C-alpha cells in the first residue's frame, strides 16, 4: 500500500474517531456526574441523523453554511429531547439500582427504535449532499474526501470548547467536583438536579451532533443506534469511564484500528477490536484513564432476606407442575406442545441468567451470547460435521462454556456498569462475526433445516422437559451450595470476601461459566425446536428479554425466573397477535417494572407473605 493510501486510510480513521469521540465523550460525561450509563445514547445518535436528514431536506440546504446550521439545529433538537427524557424519567432513576437504570435507558432506546420507523419509514435515508462539502483532495496520490476533514475539525472544535468549559468556567468546576463527589457538591448548596439535567442534555446534544454530522458520510438507518452504542461502550471501557482524555485516546485508537484494519485485515477487524480491549483490561481493568472502582460498595439488593430451604408448598407446586407437563402430550396437540417447549427453553435461559444476576449480583447485557453460541454450535455441528441429535445437544453447552471461560475471564476483572458494558460489547462482537461470516453462518439468512428426520416431536418434548427440570433443579440448588454462599459474599461485600480468602474473580468466573453452560443448553434446544438459527439468537434483544423475564419474576429465588419467563413468553406471543410494535410495548413494560414493581411478581408476593408473618 502506498504512503498516500495509508495516509488516506489514517485520515478516514480519524474521521471515524471524531464520531466515536463525540458519542463516547457524552456518554462518559453523563456517567461521571450521574453514575448512569445511558443505554439510549446510541438511539439519540440515530435520532440526530434522522432529524438532520429532515432539516437538510426541509430547508433544501444546498450551501455549506445552511448545511452546518441544519446540523447544529438537529443537535439542539436532540438535546431538547434528551432534556425532556431527563426531566420525565431519569430524575426518578438516580437512586435506583444500576440494573434498573440500565434497563430504563434501554427501554428509552426501544421506544426510539420503534417510533423512528413510524415517522420516517423503514428505508435508509440519504441526505442531499452539499456540493462544496462533497469533493476530495489529493494527498500523496490518494484521494481524501474533504468531508472527513470537516468531521475531524468539528470534533476538534468540540474538544476545545469542552476543554475550556471544564477547566475555565464555574460550570466546569462543578462538573469536576461532582465527578469526584456529587453528594458533597449537593451539600455545598449546588442545585444537583439542574446540574444533572444540564450534563445529560449536553451529552445527548453531542450524540445528536455526531449523528447529524454522520449524514455527510452515510445514510440515516435504523441499525446505526445499536452499532454506535456498542462502539461507544468499547471506547469508554478502553478509555476509562468519566474521562474526556480517555474517550479521546480510545476513540482514536478504535477509529484508526477499524480504518486500517479494514484495509489490511478485513476479516479480522472485529477480532482485533476484541484483542485490544482484552489487552487493555488485562493490564488496567478500569481503562487507560479510568479510576479504579471502590471495592467497598454494598450490593443493591441488600434488603433481601437470608436464603431459606425450599419451602414445602413450593416443592409440591414444582412436582405438580412436572406431573402436569408429563401428561400434557395426551391433551395438547403439536402446536400446544411446541409452545410448551418454547416456554421451557425460555425458563432455562432465564434461570441461567438468574444465577449471575441474583446470587452473583452481576448485571450482564450479553447473556444471549451463550444462548446463541449454543444454538450455532448445534447448527454448525449438524451442517458441517453431521452430528447426531444427542451429540449436537452435548456440544451446545460445551461450546457456550468455552466462550464463557474466555469472555468471563475478561469480564470478571471489572464489576458494576463496566461488567454490563463489557458483556454487551463482547456479545455484540460475536453477533457481528456471525452476521458477517456469510460463508459459514449464512449471515442474516441463518442456518435452516436442522431438525433430524429420525427425531419425533414427542421424544424431543420429553428430552426438553427432563433437561429443563434438571437445569432448574441445579440452578436453584447452587445458591444453597458452598459456591453459592461464596458468590453471595462477593456480591454483598467484596472486601470481606477477599479478607476471608475468597478469590472474588475466580468465584464469579465459576458461576459465570456454569450459568453460560445452561444458557448454551437452552440455545441448543431452541435450535432444534425452531429447526433453524438466526443471528437474533445472539442479539441484545434476547439478552434484554432474559433480563425482563428475571425481573418480572424476581431475583430472590429460582421461582422468579421460572414464573417470569412463562409470563413473558405468553404475553409476548399474545401481544404480537395484535401489533408488531413489540418493542414499544416492551419499552413501556420495562419502565413500569422499574418504577412500580421493582421486586418482580414472586418477590412482591413473598415480601407480602413475610410481612404478614412478622405481624
Amino acid at each position, binding site marked *: 500500500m502506498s504512503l498516500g493510501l495509508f495516509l488516506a486510510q489514517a485520515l478516514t480513521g480519524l474521521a471515524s474517531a471524531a464520531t466515536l469521540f463525540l458519542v463516547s465523550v457524552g456518554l462518559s460525561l453523563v456517567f461521571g456526574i450521574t453514575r448512569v450509563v445511558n443505554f439510549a445514547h446510541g438511539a439519540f445518535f440515530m435520532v440526530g441523523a434522522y432529524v438532520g436528514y429532515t432539516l437538510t431536506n426541509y430547508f433544501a440546504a444546498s450551501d455549506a453554511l445552511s448545511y452546518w446550521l441544519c446540523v447544529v439545529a438537529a443537535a439542539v433538537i436532540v438535546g431538547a429531547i434528551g432534556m425532556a427524557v431527563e426531566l420525565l424519567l431519569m430524575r426518578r432513576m438516580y437512586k435506583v439500582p444500576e440494573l434498573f437504570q440500565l434497563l430504563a435507558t434501554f427501554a428509552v432506546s426501544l421506544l426510539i427504535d420503534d417510533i423512528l420507523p413510524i415517522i420516517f419509514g423503514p428505508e435508509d435515508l440519504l441526505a442531499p449532499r452539499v456540493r462544496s462539502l462533497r469533493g476530495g483532495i489529493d494527498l500523496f496520490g490518494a484521494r481524501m474526501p474533504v468531508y472527513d476533514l470537516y468531521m475531524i475539525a468539528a470534533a476538534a472544535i468540540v474538544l476545545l470548547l469542552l476543554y475550556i468549559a471544564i477547566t475555565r468556567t464555574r460550570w466546569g468546576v462543578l462538573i469536576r467536583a461532582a465527578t469526584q463527589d456529587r453528594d458533597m457538591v449537593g451539600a455545598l448548596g449546588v442545585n444537583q438536579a439542574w446540574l444533572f439535567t444540564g450534563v445529560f442534555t449536553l451529552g445527548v446534544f453531542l450524540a445528536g451532533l455526531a449523528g447529524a454530522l454522520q449524514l455527510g458520510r452515510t445514510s440515516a438507518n435504523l441499525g446505526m443506534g445499536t452499532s454506535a452504542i456498542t462502539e461507544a461502550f468499547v471506547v469508554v471501557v478502553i478509555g476509562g469511564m468519566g474521562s474526556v482524555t480517555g474517550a479521546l485516546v480510545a476513540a482514536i485508537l478504535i477509529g484508526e484500528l477499524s480504518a486500517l484494519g479494514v484495509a489490511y485485515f478485513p476479516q479480522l477487524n472485529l477480532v482485533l477490536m476484541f484483542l485490544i480491549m482484552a489487552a487493555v483490561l488485562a493490564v488496567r481493568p478500569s481503562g487507560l484513564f479510568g479510576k479504579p472502582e471502590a471495592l467497598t460498595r454494598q450490593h443493591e439488593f441488600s434488603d433481601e432476606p437470608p436464603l431459606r430451604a425450599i419451602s414445602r408448598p413450593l416443592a409440591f407446586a414444582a412436582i405438580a407442575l412436572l406431573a402436569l407437563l408429563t401428561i400434557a402430550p395426551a391433551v395438547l396437540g403439536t402446536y400446544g406442545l411446541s409452545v410448551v417447549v418454547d416456554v421451557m427453553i425460555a425458563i432455562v435461559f432465564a434461570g441461567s441468567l438468574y444465577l449471575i444476576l441474583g446470587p452473583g449480583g452481576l448485571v450482564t447485557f450479553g447473556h444471549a451470547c451463550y444462548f446463541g453460541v449454543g444454538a450455532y454450535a448445534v447448527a454448525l455441528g449438524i451442517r458441517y460435521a453431521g452430528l447426531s441429535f444427542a451429540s449436537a445437544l452435548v456440544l451446545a453447552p460445551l461450546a457456550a462454556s468455552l466462550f464463557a471461560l474466555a469472555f468471563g475471564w475478561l469480564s470478571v476483572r471489572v464489576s458494576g456498569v463496566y461488567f454490563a458494558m463489557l458483556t454487551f460489547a463482547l456479545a455484540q462482537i460475536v453477533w457481528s462475526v456471525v452476521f458477517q461470516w456469510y460463508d459459514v453462518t449464512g449471515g442474516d439468512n441463518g442456518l435452516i433445516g436442522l431438525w433430524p428426520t429420525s427425531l419425533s416431536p414427542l421424544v424431543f418434548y420429553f428430552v426438553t422437559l427432563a433437561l429443563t427440570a434438571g437445569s432448574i433443579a441445579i440452578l436453584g440448588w447452587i445458591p*444453597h451450595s458452598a459456591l453459592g454462599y*461464596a458468590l453471595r459474599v462477593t456480591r454483598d461485600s467484596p472486601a*470481606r470476601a*477477599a479478607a476471608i480468602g*475468597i478469590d472474588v474473580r475466580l468465584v464469579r468466573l465459576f458461576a459465570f461459566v456454569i450459568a453460560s453452560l445452561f444458557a448454551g443448553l437452552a440455545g441448543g434446544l431452541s435450535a432444534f425446536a425452531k429447526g433453524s438459527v438466526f443471528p437474533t439468537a445472539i442479539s441484545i434483544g434476547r439478552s434484554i428479554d432474559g433480563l425482563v423475564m428475571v425481573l418480572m419474576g424476581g431475583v430472590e429465588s429460582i421461582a422468579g425466573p421460572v414464573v417470569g419467563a412463562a409470563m413473558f413468553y405468553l404475553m409476548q406471543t399474545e401481544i404480537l397477535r395484535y401489533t408488531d410494535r413489540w418493542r414499544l410495548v416492551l419499552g413501556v413494560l420495562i419502565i413500569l417494572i422499574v418504577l412500580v414493581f421493582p421486586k418482580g411478581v414472586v418477590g412482591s408476593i413473598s415480601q407480602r407473605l413475610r410481612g404478614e408473618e412478622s405481624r
Partner: protein
Amino acid sequence: MTPQHPTAPLLQVRDLLVRYGETLAVNGVSLDVEAGKLIAIIGPNGAGKSTCFNAISGQRPPNAGEVLLDGKSISGLLPETIFSLGVGRTFQVTATVPTMTVRENVQVALISYHRRTFSPWVSARRLYREEADRLLELIGMTGQRDRACGVLAYGDLKRLELAIALANAPRLLLMDEPTAGMAPAERNELMALVARLAADRGIGVLFTEHDIDIVFSLAHRIVVMNRGQLLATGTPDVIRADPRVQEIYLGRDDHTGSAEKQPS
C-alpha cells in the same frame, strides 16, 4: 498454636510507605507484633492507622517497605493469599453480609478456610455448623445466630467481625477499631476476650482503639502515629510519659485537639 521462634517476631513491618496520589498516608513506619502480644496503634484521625492495616492485610498494597510474616515477605500479596497464611482481620466500617444470618456469615469464612468454596454440590447450610456455633458462643452471640445480619445492632456486627476473623484460626489478628460504636461495658468485655484469646492461643494482635483506657490497660506495646509517621513506640508507661505524645493528645496543635474524644 504454631511454635514461635523466640527471636523472630510474628509480624515485622519495615519502613512501610503508602501513597495516595500526592499524599503520603503512611511514611516509613516500622513495627513488630510478637505471638501472644497485643500491640496498639494510636494516633489522631488521619494518622494513617487504617492504611497501615490495609497495607499489611493486602487490601492496599504498600508502595515501598516490607511486611514480613514469620520472616517471610507478604507485602504485595493478595488479601485472599494473606488470609490463607493465617491472618484474620476486622474492618473499621464493618464488612459483613447483610443477606445472610449471623451463623452463615461465620460458616462462609470457615468454608473458605477449609477450601470448600468450589463445591457446587455441597450444602453450605450444614458445613461447619458446629464450628461456627462454637465461635459464636465464644463472642456471646449464640442467641442471635439465626438472625439476619442486616438487622443487627452495630456493636453486635463488630463482635461478629471478630468471630469471622477467628474462623481461619489466625496467628495474627488485625483489628481496626474493633470497639467503635460500642457501649463502654461491651468494649471492655470484647477487648478482654481478645486479650484472653491472644494469651491462650498465642495470637499476635495488632489493633487500633480510640478508648485510651483500654489501650493503656491491655496493650503490651503502643505505637503512636501522627500524619503518616511513626512518632513513638514503647510500653504504656513509656508512652504515657512521652512529651511528644502528650503534645498531640493534650492538643497543643489546635487541629488535633478534639480528635481523640471518645465517640459518643
